[in-house]
């Protein structure tokens, strides 16, 4: 393992300057000298947490002690290996997610960034986000992460009500969260995001809206609203099953969502995705890459990636999943440089389905130009223009198809999953009619 050298420190320092300078005006249209197959976003998974949250079914572990040096080495190795395999030359964003990556040492973050910068081009203005948990993110630690190269924070605030935080199994209080938020804004002005959950058991609309309004007094330029989904295997799920807690009311959650988006619109936020709101252009470029079906590499236990392999002569994108369990993953990385557990080639139709399903989550939807990058033959009008069922959705005002492209209306965005049940089969049908001789995935 290379100790972060001058070059990495140099990168972090450069990034530090850049974050003040930079404003993403339209994340979707950032021009790049590299072709799409040579660009990627990078996700790094830190699998450990201090404590299990009652709602979380992510791939995370509560360790007795973390062998951080070994983990760091493996993250570095795998990042390098995957960058080489993919032939990616330019990494446009890095996202440290988890787990609780703010529990990792800043040294680990800088080591990974340095390795990336050594293997590919990591522009100084690249977005480098760290997910931070209020209790593990004191001001001094945040400053150290900043020095390590992090230039954007996503804070898991979740609620401003202490009893709700307790229900969720969070280790912090509302005051802790607000303190962390203030410190983060001081260190990363304009580049701090907070998560707020809605639709909790027994949660009521009025108090929740008041939480959101309170949060608006404190927050920066980015906010995510997440409806709680009860996941099998979580403590919360079990409590609801056993009747110890009331089941979340989807009607109320829908009302919170609709009222919440209206409040945020009033406050000057752009809802640029189903759950994400930004003002002053503070969109997350990393997440934008997912919704635009750009390439991304996933590093760390259980991380997902989607990219093309370099030098195989194939132009097929692969969906990759790394080994879930940290110890096994580390063994594999040490043995073969990466811990990829599953590789599934994505057929061309499958990729188009993802373009559709992910693109419609955004406010711009799927522009004609964007669609054409993935499918030069069949236009959006070819696919959807003649369908009676799609027409019905257009007439109901849930969907728009015009000169700009295909997108959801304000009302339609909230019921996108239902719209997709009409749109996806239509795409399949058009694909089968339009390309009888083509083998999907060819």
């Amino acid at each position, binding site marked *: 393992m290379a100790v972060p050298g001058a070059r990495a420190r140099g990168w972090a320092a450069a990034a530090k300057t850049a974050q003040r300078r930079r404003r993403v005006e339209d994340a979707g249209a950032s021009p790049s000298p590299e072709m799409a197959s040579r660009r990627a*976003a990078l*996700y790094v998974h830190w699998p450990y947490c201090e404590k299990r949250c009652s709602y979380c079914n992510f791939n995370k572990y509560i360790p007795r002690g973390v062998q951080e040096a070994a983990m760091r080495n493996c993250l570095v190795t795998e990042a390098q290996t995957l960058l080489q395999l993919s032939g990616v030359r330019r990494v446009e964003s890095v996202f440290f997610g988890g787990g609780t990556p703010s529990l990792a040492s800043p040294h680990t973050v800088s080591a990974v960034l340095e390795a990336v910068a050594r293997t590919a081009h990591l522009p100084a203005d690249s977005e480098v986000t760290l997910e931070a948990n209020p209790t593990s993110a004191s001001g001094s630690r945040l400053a150290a992460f900043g020095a390590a190269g992090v230039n954007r924070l996503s804070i898991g605030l979740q609620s401003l009500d202490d009893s709700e935080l307790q229900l969720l199994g969070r280790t912090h209080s509302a005051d802790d969260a607000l303190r962390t938020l203030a410190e983060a804004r001081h260190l990363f002005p304009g580049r701090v995001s907070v998560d707020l959950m809605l639709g909790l058991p027994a949660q009521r609309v009025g108090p929740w809206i008041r939480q959101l309004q309170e949060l608006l007094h404190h927050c920066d330029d980015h906010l995510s*609203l*997440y*409806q709680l*989904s009860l996941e099998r295997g979580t403590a919360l799920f079990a409590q609801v099953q056993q009747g110890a807690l009331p089941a979340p009311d*989807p*009607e109320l*959650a*829908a*009302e919170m*969502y*609709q009222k919440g988006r209206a409040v945020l619109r009033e406050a000057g936020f752009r809802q640029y995705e*189903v*759950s994400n709101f930004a003002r002053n252009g503070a969109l997350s470029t990393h*997440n934008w890459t*997912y*919704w635009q079906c750009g390439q*991304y590499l*996933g590093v760390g236990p*259980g*991380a*997902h*990636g*989607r990219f093309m392999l370099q030098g195989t002569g194939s132009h097929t994108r692969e*969906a990759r*999943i790394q080994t879930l369990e940290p110890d096994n993953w580390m063994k594999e990385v040490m043995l073969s440089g990466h811990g990829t557990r599953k590789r*599934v080639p994505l057929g061309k139709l*499958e990729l188009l*389905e*993802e373009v559709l*399903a*992910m693109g419609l*989550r955004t406010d711009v939807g799927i522009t004609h130009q964007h669609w054409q990058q993935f499918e030069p033959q069949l236009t959006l009008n070819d696919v959807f223009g003649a369908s009676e069922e799609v027409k019905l*959705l257009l007439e*109901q005002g*849930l969907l728009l198809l015009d000169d700009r492209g295909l997108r959801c209306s304000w009302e339609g*965005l*909230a*019921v*996108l*999953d*239902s*719209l*997709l*049940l009409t749109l*996806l*089969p239509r795409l399949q049908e058009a694909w089968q009619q339009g390309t009888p001789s083509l083998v999907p995935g060819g």
Partner: protein
Amino acid sequence: MWTLAGRGWWRGRALAPWVTGAANMALPGPRPAPTRRAPAEFRASDRLSSSASLKEKLDMSIFPVENIRNFSIIAHVDHGKSTLADRLLELTGTIDKTKNNKQVLDKLQVERERGITVKAQTASLFYNCERKQYLLNLIDTPGHVDFSYEVSRSLSACQGVLLVVDANEIDLKNADPERVEKQIEKVFDIPSSECIKISAKLGTNVESVLQAVIERIPPPKVHRKNPLRALVFDSIFDQYRGVIANVALFDGVVSKGDKIISAYTQKTYEVNEVGILNPNEHSTHKLYAGQVGYLIAGMKDVTEAQIGDTLYLHKQPVEPLPGFKSAKPMVFAGMYPVDQSEYNNLKSAIEKLTLNDSSVTVHRDSCLALGAGWRLGFLGLLHMEVFNQRLEQEYNASVILTTPTVPYKAVLSSAKLIKEYGDKEITIINPAQFPDKSKVSEYLEPVVLGTIITPDEFTGKIMMLCQARRAIQKNMIFIDQNRVMLKYLFPLNEIVVDFYDSLKSLSSGYASFDYEDAGYQTAELVKMDILLNGNIVEELVTIVHKDKAHFVGKAICERLKDSLPRQLFEIAIQAAIGSKIIARETVKAYRKNVLAKCYGGDITRKMKLLKRQAEGKKKLRKIGNVEVPKDAFIKVLKTQSDK
């Protein structure tokens, strides 16, 4: 356990296994058909020992009438009837004495699982007593009220019965022998001195039961020299040998090569094989008057060997035995394959099962939601459940069974309709065919006379339940200090689905229920439609009593609401009689249906889920603009109870 062997005392009484005073007064056995040769079936004979099997053809003439006893065992479910039968078979050397003999005569999986007898079985036992060789024919009958006719025919082949009463039912805290003794005296007028106290489980005193059978049950009053007169008391179908009829000879002799005639069908057959059952088939040269066995005579279909029919020799006609009736279904239900591609497999399974059970009626039927299927008629609900269970267990069929309905009748007033149906009175087995009131002078519904026996502390609650089911009280007596026997006239549709469950739950399992056919009564029936956004759902059309329409309509709408997924618009669910809406529920439109988090790690899972949902959407049935999952109706149909 006490057994009573006696003669005559049971004649002229409704056979009532519940009188035994047991705690768990569940309804006893039913009776679909046994398929001794059906490949999927477990065969008791496989377990029978070689020592007990008979290798050579028996000469049955060595058993004169005076050495024959034909008897049956009557007991409440779980009182040990099958255990006693097992011991009797062991004691007479019919089967080996091993620990594995459990319910030897109950061959079907459904019988073993439910602890009931579904199909009559006969076992001929050879028993030496005082240097005489006796032939003891044990005829094991089903016990459930659904099969009361079959039971009556089986019993008409017997001259006596063993009544088995468990005096020590463990889950009955207040049971004791003295009380059982008193009840037996009170209900049957049998003195306690006639009881034999045994333990079938341990085999204690079982030998004395056999001695009592010989001493107390008379030999059949029959004549070998008279022309053949044989009662068919059961029949099964064997795919290689055709119909195997269980027969009891009242007069005469039958042997291979005889030409016989069915008194009911008047068809002539040549006897290929006769024999006894011990309990597997063992062919004999002949069967003689008083004996019980089987007969194979080239009958192709069980309907040719109807229960209660009389067989006699060609050119020697006799007076048919009394009591013959054709099977009469009481309960009808639609049966459909879960997947239409399974239609042919299910068809063949139903054909095979009905080959053995002529009491099931089969009409082809179809509906838009469920596709092609059948409307089947059953003797009762247990019969239906057993049939369904056998389809699943023995033929691996997976079926959708719609809510059972009863055969309503309509007296037509429209001359045109009378001409069309060829009759003034028609029976409606499918609600979709319910004629409009304007063309009908009156509707009739089937009624049954129900008997409930309960500890008296539940009487009040039970009377309220009966009242809610439109029942009319006919009688109420105390059968002992704390047990009450209630008799009610029930509309059949009120008890078809869940009455028994309700009764059991409000009496902590103590009350028993039994019913018998009591004809038809005038009823104010209406046809109720269920509408989705104004469009009628054909498979949910229900016939209901006018007074219950609102209640039932509301219940169906509520259940449908729970099983219809939300859509992008509001769905109105309505119950209507004619143009009048009597109940309404609303499924609200989706306001939010989008996954909150969808980042790099969520895409694969999300796409999989969406595609699965899109596939499912293709299979939805559309009623107007409303998309309905198939199981939505099934859920409503299955759980619909006519309260």
